[in-house]
């Protein structure tokens, strides 16, 4: 920011922005507006076009048990993912931010730990599908300990947990890297002060690390929420929402209503509900983000 020399507005800059901004407006803002518009309409075969139906789509939606199932599953999946991501990322990031005698070795570990992030959702689904096989390695392990086997993706009690594990595994590296960045930006002087005051490792984590990481953790929760709430690909590849709709997410509802049975108005109403929840989350994120920038400035 300090590099700016020109004090007045220079509108020529808009020429540089225009292509990207027009592209984003046409490809995101406009379709979102269409979804909003369609959610108050219904296709009429009689008029061969969409006619206004006020809030009918929403009334129908809130009376649809499948909608509530998908909402419940989506919240379970999102909440579970956030907890798993933080639960895996934090300890690993703490390990990696310890005082390593060789940065090279640490970077090799860090690189290896990021690698799940490189697998596409279908690729991750296949890797875990192999582990989840009835006669696969996980069942061998479980059988030798508990004397029974688990039908991971085929059992309504286990399917959601199974896809959660895979999603936890696949996406944690992103958050690990963010947390690692945060941990490394805590001033060393704070740790020194804590040590002078005679704090042990546990007390230091509790009184220095955790308070210093509060904003970043909130940000991560919000980013993870926004990402997972509209999750589609991994769970779709693994279960298609089954068995017995036990892993049926909001995005599947959108997909089926909009693209399989072509109830565009109905599907759009779901889209609007999802967007409203997302907007709240994104607004919170932006608020924290811009407040953080003010503090830095």
């Amino acid at each position, binding site marked *: 920011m300090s590099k700016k020399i020109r004090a007045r507005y220079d509108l020529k800059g*808009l020429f540089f*922005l225009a292509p990207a901004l027009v592209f984003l407006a046409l490809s995101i803002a406009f379709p979102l507006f269409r979804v909003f518009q369609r959610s108050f309409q219904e296709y009429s075969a009689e008029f061969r076009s969409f006619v206004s139906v006020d809030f009918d789509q929403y009334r129908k939606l809130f009376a649809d048990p499948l909608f509530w199932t998908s909402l419940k599953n989506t919240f379970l999946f999102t909440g579970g993912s956030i907890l798993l991501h933080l639960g895996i990322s934090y300890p690993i990031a703490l*390990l990696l931010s310890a005082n390593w005698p060789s940065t090279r070795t640490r970077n090799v570990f860090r690189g*290896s730990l990021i690698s799940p992030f490189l697998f*596409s959702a279908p690729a991750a689904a296949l890797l875990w599908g192999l582990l989840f096989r009835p006669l696969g390695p996980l069942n061998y392990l479980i059988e030798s300990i508990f004397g029974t086997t688990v039908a991971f993706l085929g059992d309504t009690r286990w399917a959601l947990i199974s896809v959660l594990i895979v999603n936890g595994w696949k996406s944690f590296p992103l958050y690990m890297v963010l947390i690692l960045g945060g941990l490394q930006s805590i001033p060393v002087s704070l740790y020194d002060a804590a040590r002078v005051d005679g704090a042990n490792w546990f007390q230091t984590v509790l009184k220095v690390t955790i308070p210093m990481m509060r904003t970043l953790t909130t940000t991560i929760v919000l980013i993870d929420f926004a990402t997972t709430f509209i999750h589609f690909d991994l769970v779709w590849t693994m279960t298609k929402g089954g068995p017995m709709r036990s892993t049926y997410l909001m995005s599947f509802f959108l997909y089926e209503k909009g*693209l399989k049975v072509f109830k565009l108005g109905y*599907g759009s109403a779901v889209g609007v509900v999802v967007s409203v929840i997302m907007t709240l989350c994104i607004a919170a994120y932006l608020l924290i983000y811009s407040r953080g920038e003010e503090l830095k400035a």
Partner: protein
Amino acid sequence: MKSSSLGRVILLYGVTLLVTLAILFPVIFALFTSFKPNPEIFIYPPTFVPQTWTIEPYISVLSQNRYLRYFLNGYLISISSTVLCLILGAFAGYGFSRYRLPAKRALMLGILALQMFPGAVLMVPYFNMARTLGLYNTYIALILVDTIFPLALVIWLLKSYFDSIPVSLEEAAMIDGCSRTRALVSIVAPLARAGFIGTGVFAFIRAWNEFMFALILTRGPKRAPVTVGLAELFGQYTINWNGVMALTMVATFPLLILFILVQRYIIAGITSGAVK
């Protein structure tokens, strides 16, 4: 922090090694499986390291035109969208970096917010747009989609790279009669090479791994990328696990190479701005 005593270092290495192996277990197991002959996969209890090593799964997968087609499509789509994304992103990032504009912060935050939205909500409109514009099952549709989603991040990253390049260089060139665009292309862009590589790799990975829109905007293997091919294999009753794992490895291999080459740029990319 504490001085590194030997015991502490051994503990640190040991714990980290165990955690890393646990995290990598699915990958290692899949890699070994891709080198097993088919009958060995059905042995119970399952073997970990192959009893007999074979590269037959790789040969059988890579000799099928269907799979080669997926790879060709994947490269074509991902490279094109990366290039498009970098061009759009470079101009916008430059504009944001060098010009005083009204509501600039609001615009930048708006872009950030917009890019968090998409995904599933846009499935239906994109499907309809593709149908209306005659872009269903074409490369163009997928190239455009894969350009949209990383674009906000690319703009933010390139802006911060441009911010770190002194304005005086361009001003000197412009006094000598060089135009703004020319200054961007021949002075700023070469200096921001690291930024382009890092963000480019990021955009490429996003595009290569994109699945949802590839699924709804294509039909059959003619235009579909690798992710669609992999997803088809999941849930088939007779899976040739060794071949499938070989395919998964081949599909992820290019990303692994890219990642190893430019790891630090990618990490910088993830961290800056805390965007996904």
